[in-house]
């Protein structure tokens, strides 16, 4: 009987404890990550290291890229040191949910599945698929592709989207992989290519044979900074930093540096 009561009370205590942790744990954490970061003096940021120009390892073996610059900018504004945590695209969200990182700045796109698990700040980087071409050939929108030739990589998002919206007499040349698509453009076999802005920036970095200019957008999916659910204070603070960086031109400078293009107005 006594044993049983003990068991009962233990159980009750456990339930109460869990409930309390549940109630207050979240409540406490809500305001805490920002304070925690300031107390600790370091901001832990999950960044990519295999996705240039957003994040890659430079010749000095240090991470470099758009996302790293962004992390340093936020650290600087918060007045704390930045600790970079290299992540892959599959484990970047778990790093947040398990509390191993304070922010994920890893060219993260927003979608409903992710929004159910983590929160997002405002967008900090443009990411889109578009049609690119030489600077001296004008092309304003998809309708003007009529009679023109565009190379795409077969089965890519660009291929699927452009196949739906391109005019009937536009020629889509579908190549096997990204390299062939790019070669077709660089060797002058096609007038335009449809690809990601990141890829286009990468091509412009590597060769000046036939520089690519953004002609128009196919699908817009900008990058957001991810943070744990319910961190309103941190979210507000980071949003403020992003807004300020956008205004004073420092975000534009990062875009110019890594993407070879100014920040699009709609971001």
């Amino acid at each position: 009987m006594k044993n049983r009561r003990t068991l009962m009370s233990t159980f009750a205590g456990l339930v109460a404890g869990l409930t309390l942790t549940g109630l207050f744990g979240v409540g406490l954490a809500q305001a805490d990550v920002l304070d925690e970061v300031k107390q600790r003096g370091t901001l832990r940021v999950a960044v990519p290291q295999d996705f240039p120009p957003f994040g890659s390892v430079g010749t000095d073996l240090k991470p470099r890229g758009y996302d790293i610059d962004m992390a340093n900018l936020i650290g600087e504004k918060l007045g704390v040191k930045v600790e970079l945590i290299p992540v892959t695209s599959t484990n970047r969200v778990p790093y947040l949910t398990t509390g191993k990182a304070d922010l994920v700045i890893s060219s993260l796109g927003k979608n409903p599945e992710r929004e159910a698990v983590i929160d997002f700040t405002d967008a900090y980087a443009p990411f889109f698929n578009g049609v690119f071409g030489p600077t001296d050939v004008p092309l304003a929108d998809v309708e003007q592709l009529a009679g023109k030739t565009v190379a795409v990589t077969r089965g890519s998002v660009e291929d699927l989207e452009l196949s739906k919206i391109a005019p009937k007499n536009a020629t889509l040349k579908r190549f096997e992989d990204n390299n062939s698509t790019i070669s077709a453009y660089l060797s002058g076999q096609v007038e335009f290519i449809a690809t990601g802005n990141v890829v286009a920036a990468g091509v412009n970095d590597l060769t000046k044979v036939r520089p690519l200019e953004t002609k128009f957008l196919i699908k817009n999916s900008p990058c957001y900074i991810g943070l744990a659910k319910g961190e309103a204070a941190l979210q507000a603070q980071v949003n403020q930093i992003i807004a300020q960086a956008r205004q004073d031109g420092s975000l534009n400078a990062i875009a110019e540096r890594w993407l070879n293009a100014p920040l699009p107005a709609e971001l």
Partner: protein
Amino acid sequence: MAYRFDFAAVFQHSDLLLAGAGFTLALTAVGAAAGIALGILGAVSRAWRLPLLNGLFGVYVEVIRNTPFLVQLFFIFFGLPALGVKMTEWQAAVLAMVINLGAYSTEIIRAGIQATPRGQLEAAESLALTRLQAFRHVVLRPALARIWPALNSQVIIVMLGSAVCSQIATEELTFAANFIQSRNFRAFETYLVTTAMYLFMALLIRQVLAWVGRRFVIGRTR
């Protein structure tokens, strides 16, 4: 979790597959005709050691037979524009096939020509045939008759090899298959149907070439 086969997902694109197959056959027809013509020229140059041409074809045969078809194709399509030679993808595909088949058929036909018995040429001379007549009736036709089966195989190899042309966006059968597969993700069904189509086309080409052989090449020599 058993895989559910869905061939309807492939057959709803049958117009694409048929167009692709037609394009493959057209490529093969043009490639084979021009390639064999080139091969005859090469074989004669090599067998009779014609000045200049012998050496030229010798280098050509070695270069083409010892390099991958895909690399030759990429060189023509992606490489040559640097020299200002720009071709559409089907022109590049046909050219690559002609060049490729030309090299192989040069050697195949040369074997046939070199197997011509000396006595046959002497007989032609004693019958007062002109050199052209002797070449046509006494050398070339028996030579082709001897190596016809080998040549047929080579044409079929080239037809199957044209699948590689999908890499430069030539819209032949493999391109159509890859295209459909990238839309419906039905790899098993798509490639099974495509395989069957290639098999059928190869058998068809063999029948046609056998008929051409009987009618125009072998028939009147045996």
